[in-house]
């Protein structure tokens, strides 16, 4: 059982000489909707002789709806990747994704093929081990690298107590910002950063984060002094990450700018 959906489309209608026959107005655009409704007869038809059709009366044309196939849960499609895809896998990986994603993002651009028996032999089993070595250590690493490279980490340190910046200070700053970064993955700059020092307030320095002990990302950090006493606190800077900051180590200014 099929249906029709009428939607309105604004068009004009031109005649043979190019003049407008009908002014641009709403013309009904009729699109076909494909669907399947599973029905069941309420009254079963009677028995028949061989090769004879049953005599259907009007009561036999009364149906009950058993299922609307549109309301079924979408089953995932199995596809085989033909090249590396971020967040899914490497060439030769069999992946189960939602149909819309599979059609639009994988099959259409040619990044994957359907997992039929023939394709499995051609694309999955025949892929060399060398080709299979991934560019990244896991499917989510590329995204993490991108996010960390754009991050400006706010490192809150005390205004009154003396401190020297340690990897655990950065670990807790990352945790507050929504990242779990272990201490062994954090590499501080060579020169120790000591405070409290208001000359360092809002200035930027770089640290290196190592993901899965393989990929490295430089992350920009800015120090913010915080006082326990609310009266001594520095004025709040709205959206501080949207403003450019001076480098903490002016000797490295050239490399800093080039990286930015």
């Amino acid at each position, binding site marked *: 059982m099929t249906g029709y959906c009428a939607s309105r489309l604004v068009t004009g209608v031109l005649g043979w000489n190019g003049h407008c026959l009908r002014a641009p107005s709403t013309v009904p655009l009729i699109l076909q909707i494909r669907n399947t409704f599973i029905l069941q007869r309420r009254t079963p038809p009677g028995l028949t002789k061989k090769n004879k059709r049953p005599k259907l009366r009007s009561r036999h044309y009364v149906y009950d709806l058993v299922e609307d196939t549109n309301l079924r849960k979408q089953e995932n499609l199995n596809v085989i990747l033909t090249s590396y895809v971020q967040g899914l896998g490497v060439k030769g990986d069999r992946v189960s994704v939602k149909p819309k994603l599979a059609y639009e993002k994988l099959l259409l651009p040619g990044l994957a093929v359907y997992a039929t028996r023939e394709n499995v032999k051609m694309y999955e089993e025949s892929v060399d081990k060398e080709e299979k070595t991934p560019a990244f250590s896991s499917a*989510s690493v590329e995204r*993490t690298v991108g*996010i960390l490279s754009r991050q400006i980490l706010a490192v809150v340190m005390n205004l009154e*107590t003396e401190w020297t910046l340690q990897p655990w*200070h950065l670990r807790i700053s990352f945790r507050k910002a929504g990242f779990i970064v272990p201490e062994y993955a954090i590499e501080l700059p060579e020169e120790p950063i000591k405070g409290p020092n208001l000359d360092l307030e809002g200035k930027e320095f770089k640290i290196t984060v190592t993901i899965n002990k393989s990929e490295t990302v430089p992350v920009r950090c800015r120090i913010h002094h915080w006082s326990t006493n609310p009266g001594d606190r520095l004025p709040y800077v709205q959206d501080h990450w949207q403003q450019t900051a001076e480098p903490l180590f002016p000797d490295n200014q050239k490399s800093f700018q080039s990286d930015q």
Partner: protein
Amino acid sequence: MASCAVNFMKLFNFKSYQLVTSNLTRVNINFIQVRDYAARRGTREKRLKLLRAKKNSKKPEEKTKGKKLKGITVQPVYPRIQEELKPSCIDDVVVTKYYRWKLYDFAEAIQCHRETHHPTVYNQPDSYVQAHIELDMTAAKKNRFVDNFSRLATVAHPFPMGDPRSVIVFCKTSELQNEAKEAGANLVGDSSLIREIEKGNVFIKDFDHVLAHPNVLPEMVSIRGLMRKTFPNARAGTLGVDLTSMIKRFRDGIRYSAQKDEHWQDFGLIKVNIGKLDMEIEHLQENLQNVLRDIHSVRPKRKGPFITKVLICSAPSVEKFKLNLAALLPELASDLEEASDSDEDEEDEGDMRKRKMKAISA
């Protein structure tokens, strides 16, 4: 006679209609009163008012859950964050918003808070440790919800809460009175104290809690009217033999209240301070466990957990650490199973009764 009838009709401006049936009998129905002059004073104003009221009152706005900001209704967000449905991460560097929240052990969570409250960072090592406890407020019946409740949980390791509570204790013998004083009661007395209250020298409402030993109860009846709800009773725990424990409970107990979300009634939240960050971790854990057990004691009799999530927070940090409930209170898990089993038994009994009733009535 007919003319009389017609004159009568004209005089009072009645009009009648005659139904002519097939038998050619005439049946008068419905005297409709018709007036040719204008409506009497006040009627037109009334009519105008009604019209105006109809215009002004648009369709009763369906109580939209959202607030209106510049004409756009903003739907309130469901407060329960269902992060359990998200995948878990394998990497060592994790962007937490894409994944399931990390389950912390209690000690681990306190250590994390102590790191941020370190002298080199926030420098507030004695701030309060607060537990945010999320509840499923659905009651035993469908579409019914548990009411908001406020309770006092006994605490093994008291801490300064900032609201000192005053306790007045009534007991007879001097031994008991000494016991009460040592336990920390603000005012202790017996019949003489009751007389003072009757006179009006002592106001019972100055005190937060009223406790009593059963031996004074007959004399306390005289001031029952002064304290309606606060009259000592065993159910509330204000009447008892063991005065020290009662006093400690009411002075040092943790007061908490469960509030339902105004828009989403199945979501309940309790924010309760369980101690100070510089207390021993074991003490803090025991306090939290006592509070959770107290909450669990008032759970509705249905399947499914009552306490859905426990988060540990500590001002001024904005971090919330989700706790592993199974590790924190293993007995809760078994209690839930027992509750579900007993519910099934009750259902069977109910069915049996129904069947019996049907059999009897049939």
